[in-house]
């Protein structure tokens, strides 16, 4: 009987290359797969592997310049410096605040927006075409735009709120650390909620219509239907988007650079921005590399959770 190819079942492990396999097909496929993956592997790992290893290595040295001649070995001192640095911990705190608050709002608003885009609207295509806009807007342009909107002298938010008599005078929205950090959240939520909404919309569309109809027939109201049928079926998409957004928000750099430049008083420095400043403005490459490694460990932990969630949900081929 011929062996037909089935998906999602791994082939029996054949011997690695040469040496007469049990069945010729898996071995042949392995070689072909290696050949087909080779170009992609070169393009990706040819660039990435060395820098990853080098970052780890540099983090144990004191490197003060790109052309430094003397780079003394300092062991784990860069890492102990990080742990002992109160700036690092306050930066971490701000990054977590930004991550949790923006991801939370994006999820809540994104869910509402997804339900809206799935609702029986007259011009649904138009709404979807509008909603896609912030997502397509380059991140840097988004930052520059909000910098204008929030500007203390000519910002349109000030103009709007004073003309509506909601505030008496122009305010400096980016003037205090706390307010500026919240404005970072606003700018990020405005741009990224559409992405989350589209993501959840796919989840909504995969809920079979018959289930809704039979719930209606059984006399369940719209709210009840949502909580007992739609919400549980959405949990896989929510889990994926939650962890994905958490990782992205944790890495935030562009928005901070453009909108606040880390200020005022370093009050909006996130961990990626802090690392950038340490490594490139202050030329502390060793210390910056150690910081980068700390970020990588955090992200890898998050990614591991993400991949597990994906796998459990069978939402992709992993």
């Amino acid at each position, binding site marked *: 009987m011929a062996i037909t190819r089935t998906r999602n079942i791994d082939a029996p492990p054949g011997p690695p290359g040469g040496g007469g396999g049990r069945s010729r097909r898996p071995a042949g496929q392995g070689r072909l797969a290696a050949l087909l993956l080779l170009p992609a592997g*070169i*393009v990706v790992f040819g660039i990435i592997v060395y820098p990853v290893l080098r970052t780890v290595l540099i983090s144990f040295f004191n490197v003060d310049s790109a052309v430094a001649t003397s780079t003394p070995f300092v062991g784990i001192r860069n890492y102990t410096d990080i742990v002992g640095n109160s700036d690092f911990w306050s930066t971490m705190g701000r990054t977590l605040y930004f991550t949790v608050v923006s991801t939370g709002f994006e999820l809540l608003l994104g869910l509402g927006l997804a339900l809206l885009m799935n609702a029986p609207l007259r011009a649904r295509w138009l709404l979807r075409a*509008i909603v896609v806009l912030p997502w397509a807007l380059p991140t840097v342009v988004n930052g520059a735009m909000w910098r204008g909107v929030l500007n203390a002298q000519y910002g349109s938010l000030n103009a709007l709120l004073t003309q509506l008599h909601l505030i008496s005078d*122009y305010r400096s929205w980016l003037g205090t650390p706390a307010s500026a950090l919240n404005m970072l959240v606003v700018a990020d939520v405005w741009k990224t909620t559409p*992405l989350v909404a589209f993501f959840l919309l796919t989840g909504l*569309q995969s809920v079979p219509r018959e289930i809704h109809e039979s719930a209606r027939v059984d006399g369940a109201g719209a709210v009840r239907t949502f909580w007992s049928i739609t919400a549980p079926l959405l949990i896989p998409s929510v889990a994926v988007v939650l962890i994905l957004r958490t990782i992205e928000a944790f890495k935030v750099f562009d928005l901070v650079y453009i909108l606040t430049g880390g200020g005022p008083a370093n009050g909006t420095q996130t961990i990626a921005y802090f690392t950038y400043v340490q490594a490139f403005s202050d030329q502390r490459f060793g210390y910056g590399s150690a910081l980068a490694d700390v970020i990588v460990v955090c*992200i890898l932990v998050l990614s591991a959770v993400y991949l597990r969630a994906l796998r459990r949900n069978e939402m992709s081929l992993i």
Partner: protein
Amino acid sequence: MKASRRYQIFVHVAAVLVAIVILAPFAWMLTASVSDPTSLITRPYHWIPRHWDFSRYTQIFQGKGQDVAGAFRQSVINSTIVATGTVVISMGVGIFGAYAFAMLRFRFRRLTMMIFLTTYMLPPIALLVPLYLIMSSLGLLDSDLGLIIIYCSYVTPFVLWILSNYFLTIPAELEEAARVDGCSRMGALFRIILPAARPGLFATIMFAFLLAWDEFLYALIFTSTSVSKTIPVAIADFTGRYSTDFGLVAAGGLIASVPPVLLAIAFQRFVVGGLSAGAVKG
């Protein structure tokens, strides 16, 4: 269905509100870009400019030499070259790899995919210091080629992931039938699978282009002159040095947004499908 009438009104009102919240900042950028600098800072602010001032656009499109507008125009060209080069290379290598992941059985398939995906999640800041040193010694700093090489390394894993998920949706029988008819594997890939996955290909190209067009951190560090500065870096220069005239920032920002926005609207129906196949940078 009495409740449904109220529901109908509610949804439409909500949709209009959403549209306003999204479109208002765009509209303001648009009017600000054609208001003259003094009327931008007058209070109370006039939402509709009294004099239309298109000088920023003509400056950007017709300005000569090494001024701000000329540098910005050059950055549009650089971004186009870099994004196109990145898309061509990463799609070129990604199609074969995605085929292997979706259609072939081999050892460590899952593990290989996971390793590729992990690289996609690495923060760019983690590779920045050594990459800077390497690029500097290879003489690739401040060049389009240097950026393309780096961008390919993070766009390719994404292409592999999203494209192989698309390939998985193509019935295996389609490929098997072609092979029975005497097609080689590669013949089947080009004659059967790629045509059948055309929407997926378009969507992947769009996502890859947006990723490359949007990238900022590498471009910020690796470019220093208008020879290779991309649009995000040029906009960042605008906001830093010319923050006195928001109109110029707005004009530049709008021009920079035209290609991705057009792509996103044109391929909007693929966005939903594309997101289900993989996840996308925000």
